């Protein structure tokens, strides 16, 4: 468990959550005044998720927020004017009017990757960010959010699969706000907890009350610490509730009234105010002070946005390509480049196998879950129980017969057995390389005389009748063909 928060940190959490809410309230008013160009998505009721998670990160860490993570942008230091101007399509916005909502980023200073509307795609991208950070020795963690809805995408699976395989320092916040547009989570995902899915990727997971900002903070902080220590990705499911429709146009009449009423009693800001009061972290005057400061700041920021110009039409033509010297791309190396350059990077590659892949005793699903998948620790107590037991017949079935073999005792196999000669096919097939049997030595040139030729005319027949295939079929003595020269050159 991470260090308890200090008073200033507690107050910061309140400031950012309240700033998030007040900012969005103002944007609703701007929307109704037709000052917001496109859609407006509310994170009402989810402020603790954005703020609590992002607050657990260091300045050097990277985030990629979704549309309901305005609070995370604020914690990262994005001024509210950027959010106002983005929604109002102003020339002063971070994208200068080219995109709206929270679709903007900041590579250099705040380390924010812009989302796109297609869900799930940030997961592989942030996996790449995490991998690059590790490669450059930056010791960063990459964090992004996904909704319950977006957790059904292929990109979610592909990205998390790669992150797990690479043990990337990547934290995924699965923001279960109960609704994917109009579809309840139960109709999308037939598991009780979205965190249950972490088991299948062999990564650690946590479930946390998304309306408890302190719990969210500590859960994220712990995950980030684990990640930074090189223990691989971490999935955190936060249970919360989307208190508005998908966007402003959607009255969310499909949500049962009781559900809204229940979650209203669990409003994250109200809960946190009570927590601060009960723990004597603040008093009424502190709250009033912070609230007044927020309004003062937002007045200035909103005015800036409203007074800002729209982009000039011709600006639409600018910036498709990075060709005009607009960027100098340079990685920030925190380790010696020599470590990843030959000769230090060179080695004798080959797969080290853990076992021979034989079917061992099948652990029960309960045991798998208890281990947290691939032997990875899981904080998800609920995840363990929800998987349940497999059908009795399956459990009682005798384990498949193992072949008693001395080979099975081997735990490590290194391939290939013969030494590798990089950048050449090795001395063994030099003779073949130079022989007329090698199809590469056949001339496909238009005259056959010039080497530098240009022709696609060689009929397939010639290829099929090449010496390569002949020697394969007519040379039964060459049983060890997998090591023979024919195989090595028998490339497509």
């Amino acid at each position: 468990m991470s260090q308890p928060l200090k008073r200033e940190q507690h107050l910061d959490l309140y400031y950012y959550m309240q700033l998030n809410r007040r900012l969005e309230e103002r944007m609703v008013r701007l929307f109704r005044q037709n000052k917001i160009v496109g859609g407006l998505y509310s994170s009402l009721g989810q402020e603790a998720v954005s703020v609590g998670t992002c607050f657990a990160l260091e300045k050097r860490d990277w985030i990629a927020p979704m549309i309901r993570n305005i609070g995370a942008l604020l914690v990262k230091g994005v001024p509210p004017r950027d959010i106002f101007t983005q929604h109002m399509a102003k020339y002063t916005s971070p994208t200068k009017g080219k995109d709206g909502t929270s679709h903007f980023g900041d590579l250099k200073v705040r380390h924010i990757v812009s989302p796109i509307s297609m869900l799930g795609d940030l997961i592989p991208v942030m996996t790449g960010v995490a991998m690059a950070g590790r490669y450059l020795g930056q010791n960063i963690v990459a964090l992004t959010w996904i909704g319950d809805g977006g957790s059904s995408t292929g990109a979610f699976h592909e990205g998390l699969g790669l992150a797990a395989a690479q043990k990337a320092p990547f934290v995924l916040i699965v923001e279960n706000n109960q609704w994917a547009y109009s579809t309840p989570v139960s109709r999308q995902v037939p598991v009780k907890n979205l965190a249950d899915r972490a088991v299948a990727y062999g990564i650690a997971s946590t479930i946390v009350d998304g309306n408890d900002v302190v719990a969210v903070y500590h859960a994220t902080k712990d995950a980030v610490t684990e990640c930074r220590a090189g223990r691989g990705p971490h999935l955190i499911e936060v249970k919360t509730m989307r208190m508005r429709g998908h966007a402003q146009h959607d009255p969310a009449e499909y949500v049962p009234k009781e559900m809204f009423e229940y979650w209203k009693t669990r409003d994250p800001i109200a809960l946190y105010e009570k927590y601060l009061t009960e723990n004597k972290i603040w008093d009424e005057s502190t709250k009033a002070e912070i609230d007044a400061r927020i309004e003062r700041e937002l007045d200035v920021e909103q005015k800036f946005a409203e007074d800002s110009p729209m982009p000039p039409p011709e600006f639409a033509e600018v910036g498709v390509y990075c060709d005009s010297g607009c960027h100098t791309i340079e990685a920030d190396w925190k380790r010696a480049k020599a470590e990843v350059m030959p000769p230090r990077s060179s080695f004798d590659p080959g797969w080290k196998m853990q076992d021979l892949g034989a079917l061992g005793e099948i652990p029960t699903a309960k045991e798998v879950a208890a281990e947290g998948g691939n032997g990875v620790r899981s904080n998800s107590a609920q995840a363990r129980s929800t998987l349940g037991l497999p059908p009795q017949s399956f459990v009682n079935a005798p384990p498949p017969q193992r072949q008693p073999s001395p080979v099975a005792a081997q735990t490590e196999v290194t391939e290939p057995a013969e030494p590798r000669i990089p950048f050449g096919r090795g001395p063994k097939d030099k003779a073949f390389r130079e022989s007329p049997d090698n199809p590469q030595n056949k001339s496909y040139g238009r005259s056959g005389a010039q080497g530098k030729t240009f022709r696609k005319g060689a009929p397939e027949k010639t290829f099929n009748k090449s010496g390569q295939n002949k020697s394969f079929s007519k040379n039964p003595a060459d049983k060890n063909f997998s090591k023979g020269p024919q195989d090595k050159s028998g490339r497509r």
Partner: protein
Amino acid sequence: MATTAIPKPGAITMVEAIRQAMIEEMERDASVVAIGEDIGVYGGAFKVTDGLLATFGRERVIETPIAETAIIGAACGMSFLGLRPVCEMQFIDFIACCFNQVTNFVAKSHYLWDAPVPIVIRGPSGGGVHGGPFHSANPEMYFVHTPGLKVIYPSTPSDAKGLLKSAIRDNNPVLFFEHKYLYRRLKEEMPEGDYTVPIGKAAVRRPGKDLTIISYAAMAHTAVEAAEELAKEGIDAEVIDLRTLLPLDKETILASVKKTNKLLIVHEDTRTGGIAGEIAAVVCENAFEDLDGPIERVTALDTPVPYSPPLEEHFLPNTAKVVAAARKLAKY
């Protein structure tokens, strides 16, 4: 212990040329990494990355699960930190699996939020090897139609090497199509030293005065062959090899059309929506008065690439089809 050894000089195949380009760029710049399926121990399905793992290690030669979206997404994320990943699609047909990442994330980042994505996506493409409908495609036009990308499709080993080096050094996402029919069927000596071929510049493969044949990739060779045939009949055709499809070298195209006044476009891609249509529009907009005949095109049929050799041969353009179209055009 493994060390880098550049193969001895001499004529090399396109596979070897591409491999050399990757090795040289990875040696030159530690921010260049390779990512893809089976590119390490195995050396790639076509052995383009053979030996890279031994030299540069697992951190720089990243073997991934079968997950094209993850490959492109991760490469995109890496590029945000200043790396220059070279992604391999095992067959370029599988780029369809990550179409969203390429067209929505990678292609739009610089325009929308000022984030350059200096990645290369390369892979074997094209037919003529009886690979069937999912291993023979020419999907270049999906990407030529996507602002923000660059699309390269070389026809010779030296161009492949020089253009791949340019692509790796480019600050934009570049799609690099490698025609698998050409991988090992022709050899060429590489120019000396660290040379590059500029992106966006076509090559005149054969000068001529009677008509212009524009093509690229494997069909550039077919076009040259056809021009040789036509020369026997007294028709002097100029052959242009586009090399880069996006951005299109309009200058070279228009200069040639203004000289020969007749245009034939040949491509292995299917007909409807192929680049021939775009070139025809460019020529009509800029050199209509210079034309002495209709713009002709010889392309593959508007069907998937069929598997059986007689079907595929019928599907693909060939020298005879190009010669026939050129003869017809020459009569104007």
